[in-house]
């Protein structure tokens, strides 16, 4: 990476080389690019160009907002308020963008992004005290779920468990835990949907059998003993699942089949998930 900058500077060492590299150093091009590339390499985005475009755009906007902020001094209150709400919107959008940059399985990158998002949201405004308020926190969680293609009725029980009072200050640990839970939930719902699509062409008893196995496995992980996780995943092997589905089918062979709708399936699956989430006190 340093080679890139050096070679780019080196290419311009033809006629006005000294002024060129002087100009670049003075403008701070090296530092800006280095920061951007470090971020890109940490996140390893699928679309590096898009990532760089967004990164510089966010950076430019925050610089431009910062500049325009200083000119507001002495303006009317109304103007301040519109600026504040647009600032809040920018903060929200910025925080959300940071959170989506790395998948939660990329532990260190994800944790870094959560920290950045938290500090962005906690930044004190003109009239706001620093710190993340419950209202903004709950709103962000809703956005994460919505952006992860989870419908409102499905995410509502989860949000209810995770929410804070509007005026409460939200500590970082709670923020991280809640955001992670929402992302995992969004993935879970997505997987349930594709599971439903695989199983559903047959009748509802198979769907219920699958959900039953899932519930069984999840309930096994009651304590934090690692062996229990192995036990739980053993319950979900293809062989065991096939046995469960076969049992259900033979049991139901006499009775007329009842179809299960997608919403119902997703609702039951997400209920299994939400029941494992600890309520925030």
């Amino acid at each position, binding site marked *: *990476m340093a080679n*890139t*900058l050096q*070679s*780019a*500077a080196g*290419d*311009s060492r033809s006629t006005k080389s000294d002024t*060129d590299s002087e*100009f*670049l150093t003075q*403008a*701070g*091009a090296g530092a*800006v*690019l280095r920061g*951007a*590339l470090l971020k*890109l*390499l940490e996140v*390893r985005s*699928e*679309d*590096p*160009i*898009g990532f*760089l*475009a967004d990164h*510089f*755009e966010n*950076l*430019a*906007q925050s*610089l*431009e*907002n910062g*500049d*325009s902020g200083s*000119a*507001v001094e002495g303006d009317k209150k109304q*103007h301040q308020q*519109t*600026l504040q709400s*647009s600032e809040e919107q920018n903060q929200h959008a910025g925080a959300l963008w940071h959170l989506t940059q790395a998948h939660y399985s*990329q532990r260190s990158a994800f944790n870094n992004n959560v920290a950045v998002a938290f500090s962005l949201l906690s930044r004190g405004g003109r009239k706001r005290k620093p710190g993340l308020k419950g209202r903004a926190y709950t709103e962000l969680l809703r956005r994460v779920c919505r952006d992860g293609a989870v419908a409102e009725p499905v995410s509502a029980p989860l949000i209810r468990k995770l929410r804070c009072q509007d005026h409460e200050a939200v500590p970082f640990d709670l923020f991280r835990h809640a955001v992670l839970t929402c992302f995992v939930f969004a993935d879970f719902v997505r997987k349930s949907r594709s599971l439903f699509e695989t199983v559903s062409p047959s009748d509802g008893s198979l769907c219920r059998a699958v959900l039953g196995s899932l519930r069984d496995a999840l309930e096994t992980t009651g304590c934090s003993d690692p062996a229990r996780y192995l036990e739980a995943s053993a319950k979900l092997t293809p062989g065991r699942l096939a046995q469960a589905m076969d049992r259900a089918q033979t049991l139901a062979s006499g009775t007329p089949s009842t179809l299960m709708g997608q919403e119902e399936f997703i609702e039951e699956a997400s209920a299994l998930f939400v029941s494992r989430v600890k309520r925030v006190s």
Partner: protein
Amino acid sequence: MNSKRFTLPVDEYLALEHVPFYIEDALSQLLEHKEEYTQFGIVRFFADYFNSVRNGNHILFREFSFVKATPHNRSSFLRAFWRCFRQIGKNGDLLTVMEYRSLLQLLCPDFPVELVQKAARIVLMDDAMDCLMSFPDFLYAFQIQFYYEEFFENIAVIYQDLLSGKSPNTVIVPTSFSAEQVTRPATSNTAAQEGVDSPLFCGCIEALCERYKYSHPPLSSIKEILCQVQRVSFYGFLMAIAKHEGINCDIGSLPSKADLLIDPEMDRELEKLIAQISVSPTSNSSSSTVGHKEPVRKASPRKSLHYRRRIDIESDGSNEETDSSEN
């Protein structure tokens, strides 16, 4: 891009989408037009630059060496060409090679004539090179010729080798028995017209693709084309690639033939772009002018529409605050 990107070394990851190339180009552009860009700040410059790369506008009015440098640049250029000159297709005009080249030069002042001629050869099946061509015919042939230029050069060599009866040393032949069967010499001119044996040709192409570093059409599509005939000629093969919908989708610049001329939303963009071209000093006044030599002051290629609008807004003296919140 698959999840392998997480384990690649830094250089390889960055090279996947040619990030160092674009950074170098951004810095050169910055140095070339520093008076213009330092006014708005260096971060805004990078934001605009990478946004335009993402949107595919970055290749407009740039030199040919830049336009052909990466697959993304090539496909962006193809898309821009289609968007700009779609109207010609709509009117049903037929144009010559040199006329198409002039159009290309409006977007890229030093676009070489050889490339346009190669594209025309595909449409006209290497015959009657002063014939007129329709816009869709030319566009699809030009697309594959430009996007897969290096690949076709290699294929041409393989084809010639097969025609002259040389058995290419990299061909993968399952058994030595069939290798002996294959090396019967090509006899006469009729052989050249009949082309080469398709399965053999396919095998050679497959071997090439395995070790190939440039872009090439997906092997499955190539196999699909070649398994339909026993023998294939070079331009017959190329023409089939030009018409192949799967390959067109794989490149991703142009819509399918049915949608090529349909897009009412583009008309607005087109009008703006035409207005910009007629204002820009690099535009040609008549399409029949070829290779004009007068020195042109190159308008800054970074003045995208967005940029110009921004400058207009700033100069209107509007509030900086409202401007930033609109952005």
